[in-house]
């Protein structure tokens, strides 16, 4: 049963991945649609980042994680190197948890 779940998920996920790439070739998308695609991807990524930063299983993710992400966002805003953004966000969240913040 679990094997069937894994196969279904693998086939479906790959179909989504390849589907988008092939559709772009097959469909002659109008220029208007083409130009909004990067904005669509930015919206999806922003939504992923926001929900991952603030929620966990549909509920508020606590304080430490959003605070750590905020540290990373401020650093990114100030054009800090990407590595610094990622490491500082993790370190801030880890330190807050060490201090007992949920």
């Amino acid at each position, binding site marked *: *049963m679990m094997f069937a779940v894994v196969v279904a998920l693998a086939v479906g996920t*790959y179909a*989504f991945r390849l589907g988008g*790439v092939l559709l772009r070739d097959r469909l002659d998308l109008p220029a208007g649609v083409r130009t909004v695609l990067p904005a*669509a991807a930015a919206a999806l*990524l*922003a939504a992923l980042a926001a929900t991952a930063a603030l929620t966990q299983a549909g509920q508020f993710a606590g304080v430490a*994680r959003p605070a750590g992400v905020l540290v990373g966002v401020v*650093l990114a805003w100030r054009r800090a190197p990407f590595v610094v953004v*990622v490491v500082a966000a993790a370190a801030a969240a880890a330190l807050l948890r060490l201090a007992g913040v949920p």
Partner: protein
Amino acid sequence: MQEADRSLRRDVGAIALASGAVGVSFGAIAVASGVSPLLTVLMSLVIFAGGAQFLAVGLMAAGNPFAAVVAGLLLNARHLPFGLALGATLDGGPARKLLGSHLMVDESVAFALARPDGPARRRAYWMTGGSLFVCWNVGAGLGVLLGGVAGDTDRFGLDAAFPAGLFGLILPSLRDRETRAVALTGAAVALASTPFLPAGLPVLLALTGLVCIPLTRRTRVDARS
């Protein structure tokens, strides 16, 4: 060019290592939830999407295999618009399209789209996708071997590293007024609907942010006239 390459390698290395660590926790959690070691490793290789894998393991452990498939696919449906947006990044023969599609994850898309269309974008996509594939799967395998010792990666703040990294990658594109309006509206819609909808759907709803495009264009025309 070499300078840009070195910084790309360093940035990709950071996110790949973090993903490897999360992979370790995935392997440990899957085995602890009753998924066989072999199936855990296979799952990471063929699905290669962290969020859907965690979700599916949780729902399978809860005895709901049907929900595991539906929820996992809902969560991964975002790859379709990702593929449309990637443009010419996977051009260059059917082999590249077939293999490259499997390496399509949030991070490889974000790294690629942060660069102008062309060789730089292509390099970023393949380097990120390839490194993450290796690290994620090696991590999952290690997690299976280590089992409970791997513990939870939240202690090290890795749950904050991923959203921060994604924000860092999309921030430059948000300097464009239209993209910013679309992305912020989409993120707000996703956040507002998260408590009420199954996982995956809120992120797809972010596409409603595209309604901002005619609005911003109209105000621009108004301002001109």
